[in-house]
């Protein structure tokens, strides 16, 4: 902002200057004010405090496991791709950190997790653990995480909008790097959180927070919030 103030030859477009201030001080919520087209399905995504909308382009079968839930292919306005399977990020293309060839054949279904969450369990005990392999951009191949999933209370400080966190059931996945091991550059512990709407047995992941790497975390919410 100091740069604007220091200028003696600034833009004459005062409308854009005011919008710039709005962007700078309100956290860039332009996307929240966009009117979605009811013919399409949207995800509201927030990255670094700024929101944008993704639109559902395709629903593809899982190429590795035809019986598995389908993979949703979401697009940004810039042609970036985010793939979700049961609310979990299973792939991206065109982002600063991409995930590819993600495989987690032993990942439990949300139904089983919801059922497990109601059972008595020691504090902090994982509901399930499994292994996930993936490739990342910058040629990081064969990355393996061990994931444990925990039921958690509705957290504070999320990017959830338009819904009460307490009305949803929350889970947290903690990914521990195995290959390469923790301590290797880029091998970091990643955390993902999910908010599920459980309604008469129907389970829908309405909100996801996912870090693709130490520098890129995003939240994804079905939009508009219902």
């Amino acid at each position, binding site marked *: 902002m100091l740069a604007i103030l*220091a200028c003696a030859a600034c833009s004459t477009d005062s409308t854009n200057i005011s919008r710039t201030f709005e962007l700078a001080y309100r956290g*860039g919520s332009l996307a929240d004010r966009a009117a979605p087209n009811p013919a399409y399905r949207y995800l509201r995504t927030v990255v670094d405090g700024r929101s944008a909308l993704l639109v559902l382009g395709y629903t593809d079968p899982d190429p590795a496991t035809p019986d598995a839930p389908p993979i949703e292919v979401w697009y940004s306005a810039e042609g970036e791709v985010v793939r979700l399977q049961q609310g979990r990020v299973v792939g991206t293309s065109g982002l600063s950190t991409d995930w590819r060839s993600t495989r987690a054949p032993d990942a439990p279904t949300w139904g089983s997790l919801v059922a497990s969450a109601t059972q008595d369990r020691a504090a902090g005990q994982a509901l399930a653990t499994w292994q996930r392999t993936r490739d990342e951009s910058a040629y990081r*191949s064969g990355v393996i995480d061990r994931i444990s999933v925990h039921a958690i209370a509705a957290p504070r400080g999320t990017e959830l909008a338009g819904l009460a966190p307490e009305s949803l059931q929350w889970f947290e996945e903690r990914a521990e790097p195995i290959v390469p091991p923790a301590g290797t550059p880029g091998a970091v512990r990643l955390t993902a959180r999910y908010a599920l709407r459980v309604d008469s047995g129907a389970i829908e992941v309405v909100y996801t927070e996912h870090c693709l790497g130490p520098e890129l975390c995003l939240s994804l919410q079905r939009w508009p919030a219902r």
Partner: protein
Amino acid sequence: MTRPLPAATTLARPVRPSRLCLAVAQVCIVLGMPTAAGNAQAGGGATASVASAQTAIRAGERLSDWLLRNPPGAGDDPAALAWQVPSARQAQAELKQALLAQLWSARDLQADETTRQRLADWLRSLPVTGRVPLAIVDARWLQANPDQDPILAPGHALVLPQRPGTVTLLADDGRPCAVAHRPGTQARGYLQACIGEAASEADMAWIVQPDGRVQRFGIATWNAEPQSEPAPGAWIWAPRRSAAWPEDFSDRLATFLATQSPTPIAARAAPTQTTTPIAARAAPTQTGTLASAPVGATPVAIPPSDPTSAAGAHDERPIAAHAAPTDTTAPAPPPVGATQVAISPSDPVVARPGVPTANDWGFIGLLQTPTARMSPAGELRFHLSRVEPYTRGSVVAQPFDWLEAGFRYTSVSNRLYGPEIAGSQSYKDKSIDFKLRLAQETAHTPALAIGMTDIGGTGLFSGEYLVASKRSGDFDWSLGLGWGYVGNAGRVKNPFTWFDDSFAEREEGAGGGSGGEFSASNYFKGRTSFFGGVQYAPSDDWVLKLEYDGNDYQNEPQGNNQKHDSPFNLGVVYRYASGLDLTAGLERGNTLMLGLTLHGSLADLTVPKLLDPSYPRPLSTYPAGPTDWARMSAEFAEQTRWSVREVRRQGTDLQLVVEEPYTIYLRDRIDRAVAVLHLHAPADVRRFVLSFHERGMPLTDWVVLRDEWVARQTRYRAHAEQFEAVVAAEHWPAHSQEKLWAGPAERFSTGLEPSYSQSLGGPDGFILFQLGITAPTELRLADDTWLSGRANLGLIDNYDKFEYDGPSNLPRVRTDIRKYVTESDLTLPTLQLNHVRALGTNQYASLYGGYLEPMFAGVGGEWLYRPWNSHFAFGIDLNHVRQRDFDQHFGLRDYDVTTGHATLYWHTGWENTLVKLSAGQYLAGDRGVTVDIARQFDNGVKMGVFATKTDVSAEEFGEGSFDKGIYLSIPFDAMLPFSSARTADIIWRPLTRDGGAMLSRTLALFDLTRLRDRRAGRYAPAGSQAWLALDDDREDGRSIWGELGHTGGWLADKIFSPEAVRPLLLGAGLTGLSATLDRPLADWADEHQGGSWDTLGEAASLIPFGLAAGAGALWMGLADDTASDTARTSLLAAGWTLGAQLATKYAVNRARPEAGLGPHEFRGPGNGGSDSSFPSIHMGVAFALATPFAQKYDAPWLYGLAAATGFGRIQERQHFFSDVVAGSLMGYGIASLLVDEQRSRNGPAITLGADRSLQAHWMF
């Protein structure tokens, strides 16, 4: 600011072939398709071993469609998908031939014949595939990014390999080595697995990733940097230092390997059977260290090529695929026999970059001492440090990789500024420092830098230093020698006293009575001391520093000596965030130091344009139906902010006259413009011509080939199939054009903007500022005539403290600044009438009158000569002005002056640097010269420096001695989330004085006509595809220092060779013979002095300067590339001649004729050598400059011109005849040798082909 990992780059540009008819071959493709191994020309077009209707390409379908029909299965490696295109094969075949030619003919290759043979055989066996790298192999992503999605055509091939479990190292003896891939392992780890401890001898690693991209990284302890790890299937080429493979060979080899399959190549049946099967390495020992098995010690046989594939086809699948896949959810285990890379905890497989951090002075260094390290070019640093009694605030910029410069305010807390000036305010000292890198670090030699502190200031803290730095892993060691303040401890004898005793003493008050003078007579004089230290970076966030200070603080300026308990200083830096460093230290053994550094790269400054309208996605279809030009114009204006004045049609050309088009990201804006035009223009329009006008003056035409532009936007093609779609050209007046539409001109504009101004470091307060609102307004009376002005209302300021008026011995043209900013809150800084006009093709003129700037009103005009796309421009401005009243309203004061300048603008073509040289009369009536040098980065940010010297003496000028300053120009496009044509200009002057003051004109023709330079289209947002592509456009080849080094080596080889004996003896003989004429010609000169003889002599002595200026201009591109290359040779020859002759002068030390001691007075090495008569530098340089041109263009008259210099030198009694002869022979000899060197580089390389043909290869 942390730069992202380097993007993969293609190192060698393919040679663009002429348009050939593509062979109409069988449409082919398939998973795991074999390639033609032994047939270099067949590429990937061999018959498919497994082909089906499903997997076969359908001509005309996109890659995304094919991928959707053939989704990659388990074990496949889609990132390694190879798209092979016939049109790419020729360039790759030429690359392969160039590699082979270089293997056999390059003089600087040290590999033995066996190694060359092995490598050549192996290279010959590799196919020319025509592979073109793909962006992201994801069908859904490609569908949304059609410009990256190729359309498959007959002759194309797709190869989708299985993911191998190995990485293949190509050792520098030509033997491949496959190593099991291990995630998290960097190149050095694989190198160690293959060659053991010898890996420490490798400095650079070229990694050819499976997707066809080539990366290059430093991997030694002295140059390790963050890097990508090799993916499965990658190639690594990391030659050892001792193997001395030339860098350009490595670049070419890596580029060629990128065209190959990402699998370990099985042994091929080379004719000589010298190729060695790939040997997997032995498993590591139980201690976890790597076994250092020699090549082939425990070979594990890799299945050789299928003997039935006589044409060279072989199983494309890597050895990993021979093992049955065990688990589709886990990566395939390493193949049988392949080695697990065991990384010992002590192995430095993690590359951490060198960490340059600021010292107390704001420069890259330790604490009090500098190092030879530099930040990347474009970095700007704000630094604040406090160590009793000094508080230092610095602004330091890095305009080039090799130059660091900045200004600093030092507050001395226990000294007053002076009660008559500033009451109780502490003393403030201003200074300028710089540091220049002399040599980059290599494996064996340190980085070397020279620097100066407090130059052009008061000189209180002036010092000079030479410093060397050498890195070993996380430790960075420095050692230097300092003079003046840097070496104030005086612990060693000044080494320069060996040459001259005067170096022992340093004059006090080096800045002159007024400060600001460059006291060259003081440089490297006085107290001298070693300094040095080490920094250790154990992590990315922490840096520890230990240094030995060259200052003992017992000779401080202002008698301000400090208690000094230890020469060792200790410090720690915490990198709180990517642009914020916090420093704490203990200095002098007893004093706490605290520091804060804000830093970032202005060259990387970019902001996504969230507020710009969405980019209209081009379609491959063309519109039908009539065009609504008004609607097109409106959309055009919305996308580009440009005003369309006219739309014209001539044949298949559609021309738009666009007013005021300048913006920093011109190409980006043009793309938006063409996207709109394509949506609307009739389908039969083939070219768009954007005719850019500025204030009614036509400047340039940008011509867009519609079909090519659309193709680039809607599909991906091989480089060989692309043409430049957008070209800048000289403006051509319209002929016989049909006007389709005319738009209205915007006649009136106004707005409200914030304004801010400040003054730093004055006696009334460190910061005096004003925040307000300004209203720029413009009324256009015609296209080329307008009334412009600006009103300003100050809202918040602290000018109530502003009381001090600086003293002046000159008319107060600037030093009344206090009155101008405090007299009135509402001011009218400018209000003037302007008119511009193009006078013919390359000339422009302006007239203006009114209130031209806050302090002066008047009338003026300017004329500019600016040829299209020239490196040079020349202008003259002339103004008569009168000083305005302090309230900046309409009144005038009595003082008036005529001021104006002639300015030469020179775009050097080097690091995008512009030099302006202005000479004329300034506002105070003084006359002199201003030099302005600015470098502009690829994102449009500009860093510049200026200095003015006039006929006003330093005493008359006052404090500071002469006018100087630093400025930044930052495009708003780089800072704001919307496109803007404006820039933020920030200027810092250490002092406001009246000497050397120029009129601040708002209308400058050079800025107005900037589109006359095609380079105006080169700028792009940092990080964008266009910005990354700019690196590819950089001129290849060595830097000037590299050229000097290379040519110096060549000269040394030649001069000290047996072949040189005869010509050296001949030269000595000629010189001896010429000595017989020394006395007669000296007598002749004695008798021919005065009048026209002196005039002729002086003129002749200027010939070398004229030759140098001409060579410089030709080198800069005044003529063609041949002239430029020849000029480069001549300038190098002149440089080496100058050096050789200076050394000879010192050695011989002959008295000049004017000394009257005769021709036989030789004093030998020692004092006065620089004034020695033998040899004549003028003659040497003249012949060095003339000889390359004389030989290249067969122009012997140039020798005569150079020889005429000798007349002048003899007539002026500066040289004897033998001096002149010797000088000319040296210059001629050195230049002739360098001409030979240039010929050898550009000449053909003759090789023997495999088919016993004789082949000649030229490299361009």
